[in-house]
């Protein structure tokens, strides 16, 4: 007899991946009818005529059947971004109020009086709207992922299938001496950027704390926890830490000091030779990335992401400082 576990997944909120249309080259279908003029003989029976659903046929005097184009309903192009203005007004009020509020009421200064600060937690289904999912489908991959509420309705569940099947664009080289170019499937879960007045990009602040604390329950796979820093001039550095999840029914709490993060270019896969302290002022988002090269399903449940102060952790680290860096950095 099969019975369900703690409870079924009542609130089903699916945050969709960005819209990707299957181009005709991939064998997709264009369901929109096109304007065509079809000339048919008088004696041709109607059942052999091309069928298009919901079209109006006009039989003219010359017995020509012209299929009219269906009315295409496009979303209205909004001229005034009222929603954006509403969002900006909210932040205007916030800044004005912060000038006349006490130290504990203001969010940024209240941090100095906090022991821990919870940045993201998923007790409501609306908390999922702060995150979005991206996969390698954008450049021809075949993996999929979704973000929904967990079974206990208190956590977020990021799950899907990671496939190592190569995209059609990535052809093997013609040179017989060269091996196949390297490719691994990739899937990530990222926070939306903070947008304030007139869609100005704001950054996260990690001041007042020493480490990042995560409570999650994985499937035994290795996920990369990243914080992306916008350095300007379209240069983005990601500070990465590998998370080896245990899996299983028990929750896993991880404390990562800021010092342990390793710098790498966001576009490239290699760690930087010049490892410096993290740029606290320009950190944009958190990201959970999976790119371990194992084909199969994955599942990651996240309870909360918080910042903590632990006096046993060092503030300035020498773990990632290489004494050979001055020599290695000058090599082309």
């Amino acid at each position, binding site marked *: 007899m099969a019975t369900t576990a703690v409870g079924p997944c009542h609130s089903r909120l699916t945050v969709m991946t960005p819209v990707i249309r299957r181009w005709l080259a991939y064998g997709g279908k264009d369901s929109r009818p096109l304007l065509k003029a079809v000339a048919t003989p008088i004696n041709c029976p109607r059942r052999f005529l091309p069928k298009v659903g919901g079209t109006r046929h006009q039989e003219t005097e010359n017995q020509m059947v012209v299929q009219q184009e269906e009315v295409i309903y496009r979303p209205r192009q909004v001229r005034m971004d009222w929603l954006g203005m509403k969002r900006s007004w909210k932040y205007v009020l916030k800044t004005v109020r912060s000038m006349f509020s006490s130290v504990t009421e203001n969010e940024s200064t209240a941090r100095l*009086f906090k022991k821990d600060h919870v940045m993201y937690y998923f007790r409501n289904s609306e908390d999922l709207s702060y995150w979005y999912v991206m996969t390698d489908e954008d450049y021809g991959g075949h993996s999929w992922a979704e973000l929904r509420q967990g079974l206990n309705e208190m956590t977020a569940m990021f799950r899907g299938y990671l496939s190592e099947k190569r995209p059609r664009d990535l052809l093997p080289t013609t040179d017989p*001496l060269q091996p196949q170019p390297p490719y691994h499937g990739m899937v990530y879960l990222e926070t939306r950027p903070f947008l304030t007045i007139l869609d100005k990009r704001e950054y996260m602040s990690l001041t007042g704390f020493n480490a990042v604390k995560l409570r999650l329950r994985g499937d035994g796979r290795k996920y990369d926890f990243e914080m992306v820093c916008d350095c300007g001039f379209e240069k983005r550095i990601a500070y990465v830490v590998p998370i080896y999840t*245990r899996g299983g029914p028990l929750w896993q709490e991880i404390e990562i000091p800021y010092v342990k993060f390793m710098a790498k270019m966001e576009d490239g896969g290699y760690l930087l030779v010049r490892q410096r302290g993290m740029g606290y002022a320009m950190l944009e988002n958190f990201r959970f990335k999976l790119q371990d090269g194992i084909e199969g399903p994955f599942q990651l449940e996240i309870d909360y992401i918080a910042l903590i102060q632990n006096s046993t952790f060092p503030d300035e680290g020498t773990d990632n400082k290489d004494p050979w860096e001055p020599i290695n950095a000058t090599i082309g």
Partner: protein
Amino acid sequence: MAEFRRLSYSLIKYRCLIGLCPLFSKTAQTQNLTPCLCRYKLQRRIPSRYVHTRSLVLSQYMKSQPSRDDTEIDIVSEEEKESRLETVQELVDNEEDDSALLEFYVNKAQNEMDYMDDVDYHDIENVNKRLFFKIVDVWLKDVGSAKRGHRDFVQTLLNSLSRFDVECDISAYVKLLDCFPDGKHTGLKRDHWYWSGFADKISDHLLGQQLMFVINEHGAIPNDQLFNKTTDLFGRFSPVTLKARSLLFWYPRMVAHSPHPISIADFKKLTPTELAFNGLRQINPGVDCHYHNFAVDKSRCKEVIDSDKIDSIISCQSEKQKEQLAQHDLSIPVYIEGPFVVYYRLKKVQYYVMRANPSQAKVEEPQNQRTTIVSDKEWWSQFYGVDYQTSKPYCGKTLQFYPEEDFFPTVDIVDGYGDKKSEEISLIDSDTQSAEGPVYAIACTDYSSPVALQSWVRGLILDNPVLREASVVFREEQSFMLNAPKDDPNESDYENIDIRDI
């Protein structure tokens, strides 16, 4: 006429050496050229007929042709010439050249394996690994000190490492570095921080970079021998040494983030029971866990399992879980949920969880009853005035061995400056406990029938007598990891949307 033709053929054949002739080159008249400095002339563009990339195959092909003396007149028609070139060009362009080169040396090495190999490679038990090292030795002996055609050879071996089971072994990559020509005049070494930027032999350094990339991809553990050899070969200021240095630097730092690291080479040697044990240790952490391996009655099981899978049931229980199970309410059943799947390195391990439901696990204390403590450990120590364990007398009524010292002030050590800071994590930390019950034990097995679970419960009864009286119910779960679809099930939601509309 024939002599003129012969001279012209020899000129065409050896036109690459025209630079050496002082009559035909201006540079030779202006400078005092020696053969060593004439490398630019020698490295001029040479037609594909004389390219050394397929030197071995060509030499074999040429040997098969009958040798002609110089006295004979070569009246060769153009068609024959073209046909000869076509056959050579086919060999050059054909994709099977790599395999031909490799198969040639594999066969040669297999024929030349003798008792000396047992002495040289006595620590290698795998025959395929020995064959790999033998192939490299045979090639080195054939080719000589110049090591011509080393790039093709190294590339073909890099592409076929898995054939010899050698991809996780760093000694194989170190051996491949022996194939590069080593010497003062090779032009390979980059030892100056400035002049190395203008150096040649870029293809050799690119091949070295690819070698380092392959080491990282297959998970071989880099060692100092690799780094020292690359510096001796490629120099201090080459990208190959930079990559070797980064491998050596970052490998231990990445490994330090995992709680129980294991290399891929050791992972492949694990038996199914060892795999289950390591998987359980990953799922159920703790130094004080009890691990048991219980046998399963296979005659009663419906399914037949391969030798690669876990035949018996391996259970893991920590001390805290034991205490929680001892306090379990007997009127409520104990549930076994499963099967679930967890990844351990590259493989999957199937496990079952023994737990109770959340609301029934809490023991509600009766509020209307009045309770008084009759006797206690503290009461007895106060009664006698002596500590029970150490039999030391107390000082006064307080449970302290020494009197209070008023000379030194009492300091409460508090983290921070004594300010009262608010905590947020403690407010939300225990929310999931109300939704999920306590876990009593976890077990690994590849069987899906309840017969294996019966043997697990029978084995746990010795340490947990509660299971003799409580009823154990198997709750079959349909886990996502076992039945995950390869295609996105949510795609039907936006099939009709067209990107041109947005």
